[in-house]
């Protein structure tokens, strides 16, 4: 048998399905662009506005730095408190949602609750809580608690579902009560990942807490929205720079904290 007769598949086979997909995507784009009423004049006007906007933003104005710092600290406080409660509530909720440890009648409601927390954007929760408990940091804290549950409880449940069941069986065989099974067989296996989720959530809550103020739920977002409405763009620029700086610092801290726990 000579080598020439061996039929080899082409190394880069043409996939007609993929080409059809690309064609559909292009057609969709053309259709969607036609809906958007994009016109040349509008784009030019936008660029013109944009350049004026940037001109008004620079240089950033830090005269009201006290207000800025106060609001940033409020955002930080909202993020910390909501992370604490969010993570504390996520522990039992995530546990209830894990299919390998809990019966079906408990996992379904827990999963539904997590799904509701996840599917609404924090801003929507913020609006509802502002209407319910009034303006201020309390609404922000409640909002971010729900946002944290949606994220941490889901990942925590998945982490529990991935554990090895051997220590659990050993503890049960030795007659350990349920709480001891949890603390000695389940928690040690997921603790490291849980700390990872928690630090990530603090970071994420900090990002969100700078924004929910736009709808009145406390923190620096309120100042930002107010500055926008007064066309005080140089102060807007200062706030944005401060937020970016805060987030960069928090990312650095999160990396260091994770390093400590590895």
């Amino acid at each position, binding site marked *: 048998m000579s080598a020439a007769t061996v039929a080899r598949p082409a190394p880069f086979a043409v996939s007609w399905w993929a080409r059809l997909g690309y064609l559909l995507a292009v057609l969709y784009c053309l259709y969607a662009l036609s*809906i958007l009423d*994009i016109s040349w004049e509008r784009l030019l006007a936008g660029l013109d506005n944009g350049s004026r906007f940037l001109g008004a933003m620079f240089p950033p104005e830090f005269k009201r730095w006290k207000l800025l710092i106060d609001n940033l600290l409020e955002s930080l406080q909202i993020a910390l408190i909501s992370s604490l409660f969010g993570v504390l509530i996520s522990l039992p909720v995530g546990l209830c949602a894990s299919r390998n440890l809990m019966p079906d009648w408990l996992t379904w409601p827990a999963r539904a609750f997590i799904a509701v927390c996840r599917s609404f954007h924090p801003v*929507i929760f913020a609006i509802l809580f502002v209407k319910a*408990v009034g303006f201020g940091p309390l609404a922000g804290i409640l909002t971010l608690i729900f946002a944290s549950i949606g994220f941490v409880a889901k990942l925590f449940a998945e982490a529990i579902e991935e554990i090895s069941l051997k220590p659990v069986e050993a503890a049960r065989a030795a007659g350990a009560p349920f709480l001891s099974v949890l603390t000695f067989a389940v928690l040690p296996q997921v603790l490291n990942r849980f700390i990872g989720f928690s630090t990530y959530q603090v970071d994420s809550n900090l990002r969100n807490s700078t924004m929910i103020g*736009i709808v009145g739920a406390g923190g620096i977002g309120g100042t930002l929205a107010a500055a926008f409405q007064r066309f005080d763009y140089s102060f807007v620029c200062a706030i944005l720079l401060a937020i970016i700086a805060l987030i960069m610092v928090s990312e650095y801290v999160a990396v260091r904290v994770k390093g400590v726990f590895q």
Partner: protein
Amino acid sequence: MSADRIWQRFTPAERMARFVVFLVAAILLAWSFRTVEIIPEFLMDAPEQVADLFARMWPVDYAYYERGVHAVLIETLHIATLGTIMTLGIAIPVGIMAASNVCRVPALNWLATFILVSSRSVNTLVWALLFVAVFGPGTLAGTVTIAVRSIGFVGKLFGEALEESAPGPIEALRAAGAPWISVFLKGYWPQVSPAFWGIALFRWDINVRESSVIGLVGAGGIGMALDEALNLFHWDRVALILVCIFAVVVIAEVFVTHIRKRII
């Protein structure tokens, strides 16, 4: 001698570091609880107010769907999809610039990192405020917002996928004298394309959620209807819009999980 040795899991320095982290966290929390301005009456009042809110939301005004929600719901999906497609077009070059094994110019790496970080640090709503100021209220501002906000996410993950690709096929192509574009299309792309489509789908799923709120600051989509219903205190319509957002988000998530299973 060795019998009274005490086995410990962590070195003293490690235990110290952990202790410091916990201590700092506790101090920060205590400080937050003391300084944050929570009005206790509002907190006591909250369950009653929430019950009142739900009472006003019920029954849901389903009749409003045809008139006021359907069109903006579809618009939201268009914003999310078109924004994601625009992002892919920008994020591919930026991701390539960010991957230090593909693009070997440190200055370009830095530029790409800067673009990615600034796109992610500024929240969607803030981007929406900026683009509404630039383009005026409407769908265009929303689409650009979604596109700009997603660049950071897609570009970062795509760059990381590129950095993890195996060097073997690339070296083979280079040794055979392939031009740069062929090295990319036949060496890197087949290795990263499953990851790339996974990232794109995941981001589309996130964008469906995000595009439902950018309307609150005037950037199109169902958020505008939500804002209007809230301002007019039509709570039964608010409930309808929330139900619609929930349904669309759940359907999008199921759809994305299904497709992801097939491509990965």
